């Protein structure tokens, strides 16, 4: 079993509105999968379907290599989750809430609750009723609850909400630690790329209920974020030279004066040398970074026009 989550043509519609359509996502075992999309894109709905809280209207879900069947719920033992806002029995203390959780999950391991509270830095407040907690504390407690049963899969919906910068930093470290030490697969959603680009191994971009693309972050970084931009009076001629003399195809003519070369294996010197040898004058030549932000923004806007690796989603 190499996949923790796999969905096929997963869809959900309410009356006539399609909230999620034909999502095909794959979360590999032991990876952090960043689920990126604007608010209302369908991230929460997908997560709720994975948990069985919402029934799909089409497609199927496979968790831990087994197809999900209505009424069967043993697999829920292996999942920790935080969906939307954290909910608790407010009048009970933090510890009582976690104890109750462990009872329902059928997970009995001494010290697990202490360990979880330590991991989210909530030691010392566990005897307070949850209703006295701030939103940030509730958020951390919800994460403690999710990890207290040592799940193989964590579903975290916007887990960074309400946390201060220090808290955000420590959550990032925590998620990496869970992946590396426990081998936990983590599906974490966010509407901010900056939140997940630092921790995710794979990013799935969802917009208007459709999974636009699923890419390994390493691939995105190495092959699409850097390019060489050439300014020249005659871009068409330059393009001809690049194709014919250098055999390049990963470049794009932005306008009459600008070319972008995405094939970074070719050294900048060879580019300029070849262009000059062929009488193409160069006004400037620069190595630049196309930010990840731009990359994903383009994708969501539908301006998915430059060559990028990775399989296309639905």
């Amino acid at each position, binding site marked *: 079993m190499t996949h923790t989550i796999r969905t096929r043509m997963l869809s959900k519609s309410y009356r006539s509105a399609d909230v999620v359509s034909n999502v095909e996502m794959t979360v590999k075992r032991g990876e952090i999968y960043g689920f990126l999309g604007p608010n209302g894109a369908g991230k929460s709905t997908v997560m*709720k379907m994975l*948990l*069985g*809280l*919402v*029934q799909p209207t089409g497609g199927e879900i496979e968790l831990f290599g087994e197809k999900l069947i*209505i*009424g069967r*719920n*043993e*697999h*829920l*033992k292996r*999942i920790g*989750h935080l*969906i*939307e*806002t954290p*909910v*608790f*029995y*407010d*009048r*009970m203390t933090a510890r*009582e809430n976690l104890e*109750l*959780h462990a*009872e*329902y*999950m*059928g997970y009995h391991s001494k010290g697990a609750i202490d360990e979880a509270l330590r991991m989210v830095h909530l030691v010392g407040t566990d005897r307070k009723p949850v209703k006295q907690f701030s939103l940030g504390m509730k958020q951390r407690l919800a994460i403690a609850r999710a990890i207290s049963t040592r799940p193989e899969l964590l579903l975290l919906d916007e887990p960074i909400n309400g946390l201060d910068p220090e808290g955000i930093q420590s959550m990032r470290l925590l998620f990496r630690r869970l992946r590396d030490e426990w081998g936990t697969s983590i599906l974490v959603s966010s509407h901010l790329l900056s939140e997940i680009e630092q921790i995710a191994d794979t990013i799935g971009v969802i917009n208007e209920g459709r999974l636009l693309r699923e890419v390994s972050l390493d691939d995105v970084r190495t092959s699409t974020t850097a390019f060489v931009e050439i300014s020249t009076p005659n871009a068409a001629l330059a393009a001809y030279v690049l194709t014919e003399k250098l055999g390049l195809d990963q470049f794009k003519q932005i306008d009459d004066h600008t070319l972008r070369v995405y094939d970074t294996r070719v050294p900048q010197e060879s580019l300029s040398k070849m262009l000059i040898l062929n009488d193409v004058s160069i006004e400037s030549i620069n190595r630049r970074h196309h930010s990840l932000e731009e990359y994903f923004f383009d994708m969501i806007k539908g301006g998915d026009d430059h060559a990028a690796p990775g399989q296309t989603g639905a």
Partner: protein
Amino acid sequence: MLHLVKLELKKGGLRGYILGALIAYAAIAGLLMLMYFVKDEPTGSTFKNQADMLSAVNTLVGATFIVYASALLSKLVISEFKDRTMTLLFAYPVSRKQLIFAKLSIVFVWCFVAIVLGNVLLDALMLTVNHFVGDLASDLSATNLVHQFGHVILQTIGAAGMSLLPLVIGLPRRSVAATIVSSIFIVAIVSSNNAGFSLSSIIAIPLALAAIGIIGAYLSFRNIDQIDVA
């Protein structure tokens, strides 16, 4: 199953319900005393005889705890939906039907025990008071008492079943208010005493309503595995 009931009780706040039940008993006792001692001169005592007195006890206790059960129902079922803690419960490796069944059986059993206990305590109190003050003729033989006890048990089953009826009204609206108000309506219709006659005295009526309550609760949760929560 028993484990689930235990976990429900662990969520707390139920000690308050027991205390509340004791206060309700005291309030009913006070009301009965007023009815017993304050006399309306032309017509004499409020109670015609001892059996009449015991049936008043039964009506008051039943009515009180049907409303009380609706508060419990609100806490255990309606509020869990409203506060979205039900999404937690439904994401546990536990059968949803068993989860709901545990909750409803707590309400049913609690209602049943509270009414039977209330009848026993308050009957004993009123009979003792009457024994010493001696206003009402003692028309209760041992067979009468057994008969009365059987009647109370049937009435109580009826009341406990009826106590689930407000769920059918409150649940689709996720409304605590609708749940409690509907229980008051049910009590007002079934238990109101009109010149010594109430609908609940025809035993078929509370039993039929109880059946409707139980079937209604079953239908409300029949598709619980397929519904979307939150």
